[in-house]
Protein backbone atom coordinates (compact mmCIF):
# COMPACT_ATOMS: atom_id res chain seq x y z
CA UNK A 1 0.00 0.00 0.00
CA UNK A 2 1.39 3.42 -0.93
CA UNK A 3 2.20 5.99 1.77
CA UNK A 4 -0.42 8.29 0.35
CA UNK A 5 -3.13 5.64 0.48
CA UNK A 6 -2.16 4.68 4.00
CA UNK A 7 -2.35 8.31 5.08
CA UNK A 8 -5.76 8.62 3.48
CA UNK A 9 -7.06 5.56 5.31
CA UNK A 10 -5.68 6.80 8.61
CA UNK A 11 -7.27 10.17 7.99
CA UNK A 12 -10.65 8.65 7.23
CA UNK A 13 -10.42 6.38 10.27
CA UNK A 14 -9.66 9.25 12.63
CA UNK A 15 -11.98 11.80 11.08
CA UNK A 16 -9.17 14.08 9.97
CA UNK A 17 -9.75 16.50 7.18
CA UNK A 18 -6.47 16.74 5.34
CA UNK A 19 -6.65 17.98 1.82
CA UNK A 20 -3.64 19.35 -0.01
CA UNK A 21 -4.27 22.89 -1.23
CA UNK A 22 -2.58 21.97 -4.49
CA UNK A 23 -3.61 18.73 -6.09
CA UNK A 24 -1.69 16.32 -8.34
CA UNK A 25 2.07 16.60 -8.09
CA UNK A 26 1.77 18.39 -4.78
CA UNK A 27 0.06 15.48 -2.99
CA UNK A 28 3.24 13.66 -2.15
CA UNK A 29 4.86 16.84 -0.84
CA UNK A 30 1.83 17.59 1.29
CA UNK A 31 1.86 14.07 2.71
CA UNK A 32 5.52 14.44 3.61
CA UNK A 33 4.80 17.78 5.24
CA UNK A 34 1.96 16.22 7.24
CA UNK A 35 4.32 13.54 8.50
CA UNK A 36 6.92 16.16 9.36
CA UNK A 37 4.63 18.39 11.45
CA UNK A 38 2.20 15.85 12.87
CA UNK A 39 4.00 15.52 16.19
CA UNK A 40 4.93 19.15 16.63
CA UNK A 41 2.54 20.35 19.28
CA UNK A 42 -0.94 21.71 18.74
CA UNK A 43 -2.83 24.24 16.70
CA UNK A 44 -5.53 26.17 18.52
CA UNK A 45 -8.26 27.92 16.56
CA UNK A 46 -11.90 28.93 16.50
CA UNK A 47 -14.45 27.09 14.37
CA UNK A 48 -18.13 26.32 14.24
CA UNK A 49 -19.03 23.52 16.60
CA UNK A 50 -21.74 20.95 16.06
CA UNK A 51 -24.04 23.24 18.05
CA UNK A 52 -23.61 25.90 15.37
CA UNK A 53 -21.82 28.45 17.55
CA UNK A 54 -18.15 29.36 17.39
CA UNK A 55 -16.11 27.16 19.74
CA UNK A 56 -12.40 26.66 20.32
CA UNK A 57 -10.66 23.62 18.91
CA UNK A 58 -7.29 21.93 19.07
CA UNK A 59 -5.73 19.73 16.45
CA UNK A 60 -2.32 18.37 15.64
CA UNK A 61 -0.56 20.36 12.89
CA UNK A 62 -1.34 17.56 10.41
CA UNK A 63 -5.05 17.91 11.19
CA UNK A 64 -5.32 14.83 13.39
CA UNK A 65 -6.78 14.57 16.91
CA UNK A 66 -9.14 17.46 16.25
CA UNK A 67 -11.37 18.20 19.23
CA UNK A 68 -13.73 20.85 20.50
CA UNK A 69 -12.33 22.14 23.80
CA UNK A 70 -15.04 24.63 24.79
CA UNK A 71 -18.27 23.25 23.32
CA UNK A 72 -20.45 26.08 24.62
CA UNK A 73 -23.81 26.26 22.82
CA UNK A 74 -24.68 29.46 24.69
CA UNK A 75 -21.63 31.45 23.59
CA UNK A 76 -19.51 32.28 20.58
CA UNK A 77 -15.74 32.10 21.16
CA UNK A 78 -12.82 33.29 19.07
CA UNK A 79 -9.34 34.77 18.86
CA UNK A 80 -7.45 32.12 20.88
CA UNK A 81 -3.79 32.72 21.74
CA UNK A 82 -1.56 30.32 23.61
CA UNK A 83 0.43 31.81 26.47
CA UNK A 84 4.17 31.84 25.71
CA UNK A 85 4.65 28.66 27.80
CA UNK A 86 1.73 26.99 26.03
CA UNK A 87 -0.09 26.26 29.29
CA UNK A 88 -3.00 28.67 28.90
CA UNK A 89 -5.29 30.09 26.23
CA UNK A 90 -6.50 33.67 26.05
CA UNK A 91 -9.60 34.30 23.94
CA UNK A 92 -12.79 36.34 23.72
CA UNK A 93 -16.29 35.12 24.42
CA UNK A 94 -19.39 36.70 22.89
CA UNK A 95 -23.11 36.26 23.47
CA UNK A 96 -24.69 33.55 21.34
CA UNK A 97 -25.64 34.85 17.91
CA UNK A 98 -22.97 37.56 17.80
CA UNK A 99 -21.57 37.95 14.31
CA UNK A 100 -17.82 38.00 14.84
CA UNK A 101 -16.59 40.91 12.76
CA UNK A 102 -13.03 40.41 11.55
CA UNK A 103 -11.97 43.93 12.61
CA UNK A 104 -14.04 44.46 15.73
CA UNK A 105 -13.79 41.20 17.65
CA UNK A 106 -10.84 42.33 19.75
CA UNK A 107 -12.83 44.95 21.62
CA UNK A 108 -16.11 43.06 21.85
CA UNK A 109 -17.25 40.44 24.32
CA UNK A 110 -15.46 39.19 27.43
CA UNK A 111 -11.78 38.38 27.80
CA UNK A 112 -11.38 34.76 28.90
CA UNK A 113 -8.36 32.75 30.04
CA UNK A 114 -8.46 28.97 30.32
CA UNK A 115 -5.99 26.12 30.53
CA UNK A 116 -4.62 25.18 27.13
CA UNK A 117 -7.02 22.25 26.91
CA UNK A 118 -9.98 24.58 27.41
CA UNK A 119 -10.61 23.55 31.00
CA UNK A 120 -11.10 26.00 33.88
CA UNK A 121 -12.23 28.97 31.79
CA UNK A 122 -12.19 32.23 33.74
CA UNK A 123 -13.82 35.47 32.73
CA UNK A 124 -11.27 38.24 33.20
CA UNK A 125 -13.47 41.28 32.60
CA UNK A 126 -16.87 42.44 31.51
CA UNK A 127 -18.13 43.22 28.04
CA UNK A 128 -15.57 45.20 26.01
CA UNK A 129 -13.03 45.29 28.84
CA UNK A 130 -9.35 44.54 28.18
CA UNK A 131 -9.65 45.15 24.42
CA UNK A 132 -7.18 43.50 22.05
CA UNK A 133 -5.49 41.75 24.97
CA UNK A 134 -2.13 40.16 24.20
CA UNK A 135 0.20 38.06 26.40
CA UNK A 136 3.39 39.46 27.91
CA UNK A 137 6.46 37.25 27.42
CA UNK A 138 6.17 35.82 30.95
CA UNK A 139 2.40 35.40 30.77
CA UNK A 140 1.87 37.43 33.93
CA UNK A 141 0.63 40.57 32.21
CA UNK A 142 -1.44 41.49 29.20
CA UNK A 143 -1.16 44.51 26.91
CA UNK A 144 -4.50 46.05 25.95
CA UNK A 145 -5.28 48.58 23.26
CA UNK A 146 -7.80 51.11 24.52
CA UNK A 147 -8.98 54.48 23.24
CA UNK A 148 -6.88 56.10 26.00
CA UNK A 149 -3.72 54.26 25.05
CA UNK A 150 -1.86 50.99 25.43
CA UNK A 151 -2.35 49.62 28.92
CA UNK A 152 -0.19 46.96 30.52
CA UNK A 153 -2.31 45.08 33.03
CA UNK A 154 -1.09 42.76 35.78
CA UNK A 155 -3.26 39.65 35.51
CA UNK A 156 -3.21 38.81 39.20
CA UNK A 157 -4.23 42.21 40.52
CA UNK A 158 -5.99 43.47 37.34
CA UNK A 159 -4.21 46.78 37.87
CA UNK A 160 -2.87 48.91 35.04
CA UNK A 161 0.86 49.00 35.76
CA UNK A 162 1.82 51.15 32.81
CA UNK A 163 0.18 53.23 30.10
CA UNK A 164 1.60 54.45 26.78
CA UNK A 165 0.07 56.65 24.08
CA UNK A 166 -1.23 54.45 21.28
CA UNK A 167 0.05 56.81 18.59
CA UNK A 168 -2.58 55.95 16.02
CA UNK A 169 -2.61 52.17 16.58
CA UNK A 170 -6.22 51.08 16.38
CA UNK A 171 -6.38 47.31 16.32
CA UNK A 172 -4.59 43.96 16.56
CA UNK A 173 -1.92 44.78 19.12
CA UNK A 174 0.62 42.03 19.83
CA UNK A 175 3.55 41.96 22.23
CA UNK A 176 6.82 40.50 20.92
CA UNK A 177 8.19 37.32 22.54
CA UNK A 178 11.27 39.22 23.80
CA UNK A 179 9.04 41.89 25.36
CA UNK A 180 10.72 44.80 23.60
CA UNK A 181 8.12 45.61 20.95
CA UNK A 182 4.47 45.90 20.11
CA UNK A 183 3.10 45.51 16.62
CA UNK A 184 -0.29 46.66 15.49
CA UNK A 185 -2.36 48.34 12.80
CA UNK A 186 -2.25 52.13 12.75
CA UNK A 187 -3.17 55.35 11.07
CA UNK A 188 0.34 56.48 10.21
CA UNK A 189 0.70 58.37 6.95
CA UNK A 190 -2.27 56.33 5.78
CA UNK A 191 -4.61 53.88 7.47
CA UNK A 192 -4.07 50.10 7.40
CA UNK A 193 -0.38 50.47 8.13
CA UNK A 194 1.44 47.79 10.11
CA UNK A 195 3.67 49.47 12.69
CA UNK A 196 6.13 48.49 15.39
CA UNK A 197 6.37 50.34 18.72
CA UNK A 198 9.28 50.25 21.16
CA UNK A 199 7.72 49.23 24.48
CA UNK A 200 10.29 51.18 26.51
CA UNK A 201 10.32 54.46 24.59
CA UNK A 202 6.98 54.40 22.78
CA UNK A 203 8.78 55.22 19.55
CA UNK A 204 6.88 54.05 16.49
CA UNK A 205 8.10 52.98 13.07
CA UNK A 206 6.26 51.96 9.92
CA UNK A 207 6.67 48.32 8.92
CA UNK A 208 4.38 48.15 5.89
CA UNK A 209 1.95 50.69 4.47
CA UNK A 210 -1.22 50.19 2.47
CA UNK A 211 -3.89 47.60 3.14
CA UNK A 212 -1.88 45.63 5.66
CA UNK A 213 -3.28 44.28 8.91
CA UNK A 214 -3.43 41.47 11.48
CA UNK A 215 0.31 41.46 12.20
CA UNK A 216 1.94 38.86 14.41
CA UNK A 217 5.46 38.20 15.62
CA UNK A 218 7.98 35.66 14.53
CA UNK A 219 9.54 33.85 17.49
CA UNK A 220 12.77 35.80 16.92
CA UNK A 221 10.97 39.11 17.74
CA UNK A 222 12.79 40.60 14.75
CA UNK A 223 10.28 39.81 12.03
CA UNK A 224 6.56 40.36 11.61
CA UNK A 225 4.05 38.38 9.55
CA UNK A 226 0.95 40.09 8.17
CA UNK A 227 -1.62 39.90 5.37
CA UNK A 228 -1.43 42.60 2.71
CA UNK A 229 -3.54 43.40 -0.32
CA UNK A 230 -1.02 45.22 -2.50
CA UNK A 231 -1.88 47.90 -5.00
CA UNK A 232 -1.60 47.28 -8.72
CA UNK A 233 -3.88 44.24 -8.86
CA UNK A 234 -6.85 44.03 -11.19
CA UNK A 235 -9.93 45.37 -9.44
CA UNK A 236 -10.30 44.70 -5.71
CA UNK A 237 -7.33 42.33 -5.65
CA UNK A 238 -6.45 39.50 -3.29
CA UNK A 239 -4.83 39.53 0.12
CA UNK A 240 -1.45 37.83 0.33
CA UNK A 241 0.66 36.78 3.30
CA UNK A 242 3.77 38.91 3.79
CA UNK A 243 6.65 39.29 6.22
CA UNK A 244 9.09 42.04 7.05
CA UNK A 245 11.87 42.84 9.44
CA UNK A 246 10.66 45.05 12.29
CA UNK A 247 12.32 48.09 10.75
CA UNK A 248 10.21 47.71 7.61
CA UNK A 249 13.18 47.54 5.26
CA UNK A 250 12.88 44.02 3.86
CA UNK A 251 9.25 43.23 3.12
CA UNK A 252 8.53 40.14 1.04
CA UNK A 253 5.65 37.86 0.16
CA UNK A 254 5.35 34.47 1.88
CA UNK A 255 2.29 33.03 0.12
CA UNK A 256 -0.25 34.24 -2.39
CA UNK A 257 -2.96 32.78 -4.55
CA UNK A 258 -5.18 34.70 -6.93
CA UNK A 259 -8.80 33.99 -6.05
CA UNK A 260 -8.13 33.66 -2.32
CA UNK A 261 -7.56 36.06 0.56
CA UNK A 262 -4.85 34.87 2.91
CA UNK A 263 -5.30 35.81 6.57
CA UNK A 264 -4.57 34.43 10.02
CA UNK A 265 -0.79 34.41 9.47
CA UNK A 266 1.10 32.87 12.40
CA UNK A 267 4.31 30.94 12.94
CA UNK A 268 5.26 27.70 14.62
CA UNK A 269 7.26 28.47 17.78
CA UNK A 270 10.55 27.80 15.95
CA UNK A 271 9.51 29.91 12.91
CA UNK A 272 9.97 26.90 10.59
CA UNK A 273 6.32 26.61 9.59
CA UNK A 274 3.63 29.10 8.63
CA UNK A 275 -0.04 28.95 9.49
CA UNK A 276 -2.67 30.83 7.51
CA UNK A 277 -6.26 30.68 6.33
CA UNK A 278 -7.29 30.66 2.70
CA UNK A 279 -10.64 32.30 2.12
CA UNK A 280 -12.55 33.07 -1.06
CA UNK A 281 -14.03 36.18 0.52
CA UNK A 282 -12.11 39.07 2.01
CA UNK A 283 -11.86 39.26 5.79
CA UNK A 284 -10.95 35.70 6.72
CA UNK A 285 -14.45 34.31 7.12
CA UNK A 286 -15.14 35.14 10.77
CA UNK A 287 -18.57 36.46 9.83
CA UNK A 288 -19.39 33.06 8.32
CA UNK A 289 -17.65 29.76 9.14
CA UNK A 290 -13.98 30.60 8.74
CA UNK A 291 -11.79 29.17 6.00
CA UNK A 292 -9.42 26.24 5.57
CA UNK A 293 -6.40 26.46 7.89
CA UNK A 294 -3.18 25.80 6.00
CA UNK A 295 0.37 24.87 6.96
CA UNK A 296 3.46 25.53 4.86
CA UNK A 297 7.22 25.40 5.40
CA UNK A 298 8.80 28.83 5.78
CA UNK A 299 11.75 27.57 3.72
CA UNK A 300 9.35 27.18 0.76
CA UNK A 301 8.51 30.88 0.73
CA UNK A 302 7.79 32.74 -1.41
CA UNK A 303 5.13 30.40 -2.72
CA UNK A 304 2.23 30.83 -5.10
CA UNK A 305 -0.61 28.37 -5.54
CA UNK A 306 -3.03 27.87 -8.41
CA UNK A 307 -2.60 29.41 -11.85
CA UNK A 308 -2.32 32.95 -10.43
CA UNK A 309 -0.86 34.35 -13.66
CA UNK A 310 -0.87 37.98 -12.51
CA UNK A 311 0.79 37.15 -9.21
CA UNK A 312 3.43 34.97 -10.85
CA UNK A 313 4.39 37.87 -13.06
CA UNK A 314 5.08 40.01 -10.00
CA UNK A 315 6.93 37.21 -8.17
CA UNK A 316 8.67 35.14 -10.89
CA UNK A 317 10.86 33.36 -8.32
CA UNK A 318 7.98 32.04 -6.24
CA UNK A 319 7.68 28.27 -5.82
CA UNK A 320 4.80 25.81 -5.93
CA UNK A 321 5.14 24.76 -2.32
CA UNK A 322 3.48 21.83 -0.57
CA UNK A 323 0.61 23.16 1.54
CA UNK A 324 -1.48 21.21 4.01
CA UNK A 325 -5.09 22.22 4.01
CA UNK A 326 -6.72 21.33 7.31
CA UNK A 327 -10.09 21.98 8.91
CA UNK A 328 -12.02 25.22 8.50
CA UNK A 329 -11.30 27.78 11.20
CA UNK A 330 -10.27 31.29 12.03
CA UNK A 331 -7.25 32.93 13.72
CA UNK A 332 -5.12 29.83 14.36
CA UNK A 333 -2.14 29.77 16.72
CA UNK A 334 0.53 27.14 17.41
CA UNK A 335 2.30 25.79 20.49
CA UNK A 336 4.88 23.06 20.83
CA UNK A 337 3.80 22.47 24.41
CA UNK A 338 2.38 18.98 24.91
CA UNK A 339 -0.29 19.94 27.38
CA UNK A 340 -2.76 21.01 24.77
CA UNK A 341 -5.49 18.42 24.86
CA UNK A 342 -7.00 15.73 26.95
CA UNK A 343 -6.97 12.31 25.36
Amino acid at each position, binding site marked *: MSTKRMLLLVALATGIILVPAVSGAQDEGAAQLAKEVGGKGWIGYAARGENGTWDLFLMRPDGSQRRNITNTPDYEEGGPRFSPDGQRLLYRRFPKGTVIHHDRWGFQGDLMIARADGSEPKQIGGDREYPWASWSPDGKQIACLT*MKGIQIVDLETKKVVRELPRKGIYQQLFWSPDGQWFCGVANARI*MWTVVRMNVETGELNIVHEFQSCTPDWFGDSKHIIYPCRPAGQNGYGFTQLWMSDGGGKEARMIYGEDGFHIYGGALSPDDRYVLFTRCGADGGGSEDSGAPICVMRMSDAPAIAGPSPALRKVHPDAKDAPVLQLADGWEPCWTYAETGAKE
Partner: protein
Amino acid sequence: MKLICRNASMPYRMNLPLIALLALLLSASCAKKADTGADADVTTRGSIEVTARLEEIRGDLIDDPMYDYAHVMKYKVLQVHRGQVDTETIYVGHYNPAEPRAGVADARVQEIGGNVRQFRVGDTHRMALEVPIDDHYMGGIINKYFGEVDDPIYWAVWTNRVTQ
Protein backbone atom coordinates in the same frame (compact mmCIF):
# COMPACT_ATOMS: atom_id res chain seq x y z
CA MET B 1 -31.09 82.59 9.99
CA LYS B 2 -33.72 85.02 8.60
CA LEU B 3 -36.60 83.57 6.78
CA ILE B 4 -37.91 85.60 3.85
CA CYS B 5 -41.32 84.40 2.90
CA ARG B 6 -43.81 87.05 1.90
CA ASN B 7 -46.87 87.17 -0.28
CA ALA B 8 -46.49 90.84 -1.12
CA SER B 9 -48.45 91.44 -4.31
CA MET B 10 -51.51 89.36 -4.80
CA PRO B 11 -54.12 90.03 -7.51
CA TYR B 12 -56.90 92.23 -6.14
CA ARG B 13 -59.69 90.07 -7.46
CA MET B 14 -58.65 86.91 -5.50
CA ASN B 15 -60.96 86.34 -2.59
CA LEU B 16 -59.69 86.62 0.95
CA PRO B 17 -60.18 82.99 2.08
CA LEU B 18 -58.15 81.78 -0.88
CA ILE B 19 -55.44 84.31 -0.17
CA ALA B 20 -55.36 83.27 3.44
CA LEU B 21 -55.11 79.59 2.49
CA LEU B 22 -52.29 80.25 0.02
CA ALA B 23 -50.45 82.34 2.58
CA LEU B 24 -50.77 79.58 5.12
CA LEU B 25 -49.51 76.93 2.70
CA LEU B 26 -46.64 79.12 1.56
CA SER B 27 -45.71 79.89 5.11
CA ALA B 28 -45.77 76.22 6.06
CA SER B 29 -43.69 75.36 3.01
CA CYS B 30 -41.10 78.00 3.87
CA ALA B 31 -40.97 76.85 7.47
CA LYS B 32 -40.26 73.28 6.34
CA LYS B 33 -37.35 74.32 4.18
CA ALA B 34 -35.56 76.40 6.78
CA ASP B 35 -33.89 74.33 9.46
CA THR B 36 -31.13 75.41 11.83
CA GLY B 37 -30.31 71.77 12.51
CA ALA B 38 -30.84 72.23 16.22
CA ASP B 39 -32.28 69.27 18.09
CA ALA B 40 -31.91 67.62 21.46
CA ASP B 41 -28.93 65.57 20.33
CA VAL B 42 -26.74 68.04 18.50
CA THR B 43 -27.20 70.67 21.21
CA THR B 44 -26.20 68.37 24.07
CA ARG B 45 -23.74 65.79 22.71
CA GLY B 46 -20.01 66.38 22.39
CA SER B 47 -18.14 69.29 23.94
CA ILE B 48 -18.25 71.55 20.87
CA GLU B 49 -21.16 72.56 18.64
CA VAL B 50 -20.81 74.47 15.40
CA THR B 51 -22.63 75.31 12.22
CA ALA B 52 -20.19 74.92 9.36
CA ARG B 53 -20.15 74.69 5.59
CA LEU B 54 -18.59 71.61 3.98
CA GLU B 55 -15.84 73.07 1.81
CA GLU B 56 -14.01 70.03 0.50
CA ILE B 57 -14.05 66.22 0.44
CA ARG B 58 -10.68 64.97 -0.70
CA GLY B 59 -10.72 61.50 -2.21
CA ASP B 60 -13.67 59.22 -2.85
CA LEU B 61 -15.96 58.13 -0.06
CA ILE B 62 -15.51 54.37 0.11
CA ASP B 63 -18.69 52.34 0.46
CA ASP B 64 -17.35 48.98 1.65
CA PRO B 65 -19.39 47.22 4.34
CA MET B 66 -16.37 45.04 5.16
CA TYR B 67 -14.36 47.91 6.61
CA ASP B 68 -14.99 50.84 8.95
CA TYR B 69 -13.21 54.13 8.63
CA ALA B 70 -13.51 57.86 9.25
CA HIS B 71 -13.02 60.29 6.36
CA VAL B 72 -11.62 63.72 7.15
CA MET B 73 -13.46 66.62 5.50
CA LYS B 74 -12.72 70.36 5.42
CA TYR B 75 -15.29 72.80 6.86
CA LYS B 76 -15.64 76.56 7.14
CA VAL B 77 -17.06 77.45 10.56
CA LEU B 78 -20.03 79.82 10.32
CA GLN B 79 -21.08 79.87 13.96
CA VAL B 80 -19.83 78.38 17.20
CA HIS B 81 -22.71 77.44 19.48
CA ARG B 82 -20.82 75.68 22.26
CA GLY B 83 -17.19 75.18 23.23
CA GLN B 84 -14.20 76.87 21.70
CA VAL B 85 -13.05 76.79 18.10
CA ASP B 86 -10.15 79.08 17.30
CA THR B 87 -9.90 78.64 13.55
CA GLU B 88 -12.26 79.45 10.71
CA THR B 89 -11.35 76.21 8.96
CA ILE B 90 -11.67 72.88 10.75
CA TYR B 91 -11.06 69.31 9.68
CA VAL B 92 -13.73 66.84 10.75
CA GLY B 93 -13.68 63.05 10.64
CA HIS B 94 -17.01 61.46 9.75
CA TYR B 95 -17.49 57.76 10.48
CA ASN B 96 -18.42 55.54 7.52
CA PRO B 97 -19.59 58.62 5.56
CA ALA B 98 -21.21 56.67 2.73
CA GLU B 99 -23.98 55.74 5.17
CA PRO B 100 -26.81 58.05 6.28
CA ARG B 101 -26.07 59.43 9.76
CA ALA B 102 -29.32 58.07 11.16
CA GLY B 103 -28.12 54.49 10.70
CA VAL B 104 -24.37 54.80 11.04
CA ALA B 105 -24.01 53.78 14.71
CA ASP B 106 -22.70 50.24 15.09
CA ALA B 107 -20.72 48.01 17.44
CA ARG B 108 -17.56 50.06 16.96
CA VAL B 109 -19.11 53.52 17.30
CA GLN B 110 -22.31 53.48 19.28
CA GLU B 111 -22.95 57.13 20.19
CA ILE B 112 -23.17 58.80 16.79
CA GLY B 113 -25.90 59.99 14.45
CA GLY B 114 -27.73 62.89 12.87
CA ASN B 115 -30.04 63.48 9.93
CA VAL B 116 -27.54 64.07 7.12
CA ARG B 117 -28.15 61.47 4.45
CA GLN B 118 -25.30 62.31 2.12
CA PHE B 119 -22.17 64.44 2.35
CA ARG B 120 -22.07 67.08 -0.40
CA VAL B 121 -19.63 69.94 -0.77
CA GLY B 122 -21.46 73.25 -0.21
CA ASP B 123 -23.93 71.84 2.31
CA THR B 124 -24.14 73.37 5.77
CA HIS B 125 -24.13 71.12 8.82
CA ARG B 126 -24.78 71.67 12.49
CA MET B 127 -22.41 69.36 14.28
CA ALA B 128 -21.68 68.19 17.79
CA LEU B 129 -17.94 67.55 17.90
CA GLU B 130 -15.11 66.26 20.02
CA VAL B 131 -11.41 66.86 19.60
CA PRO B 132 -8.94 65.30 19.02
CA ILE B 133 -10.37 62.41 17.06
CA ASP B 134 -8.05 59.80 18.61
CA ASP B 135 -9.54 60.41 22.05
CA HIS B 136 -12.98 59.48 20.81
CA TYR B 137 -12.56 57.06 17.93
CA MET B 138 -10.30 54.06 17.45
CA GLY B 139 -10.35 52.91 13.83
CA GLY B 140 -9.05 53.61 10.37
CA ILE B 141 -8.88 57.25 9.29
CA ILE B 142 -8.64 58.53 5.73
CA ASN B 143 -6.91 61.88 6.09
CA LYS B 144 -5.89 63.31 2.74
CA TYR B 145 -4.59 66.40 4.55
CA PHE B 146 -1.89 64.39 6.33
CA GLY B 147 1.47 66.16 6.14
CA GLU B 148 -0.19 69.33 4.87
CA VAL B 149 -2.26 70.44 7.85
CA ASP B 150 -1.16 70.16 11.47
CA ASP B 151 -4.50 71.21 12.96
CA PRO B 152 -6.23 68.76 15.27
CA ILE B 153 -8.84 66.57 13.64
CA TYR B 154 -12.35 66.89 15.06
CA TRP B 155 -14.62 63.90 15.52
CA ALA B 156 -18.23 64.27 14.37
CA VAL B 157 -20.58 62.94 17.03
CA TRP B 158 -23.85 64.27 15.61
CA THR B 159 -24.37 65.82 12.17
CA ASN B 160 -27.59 67.55 11.18
CA ARG B 161 -28.43 69.27 7.93
CA VAL B 162 -28.98 73.03 7.95
CA THR B 163 -31.24 74.56 5.32
CA GLN B 164 -31.79 78.25 4.65
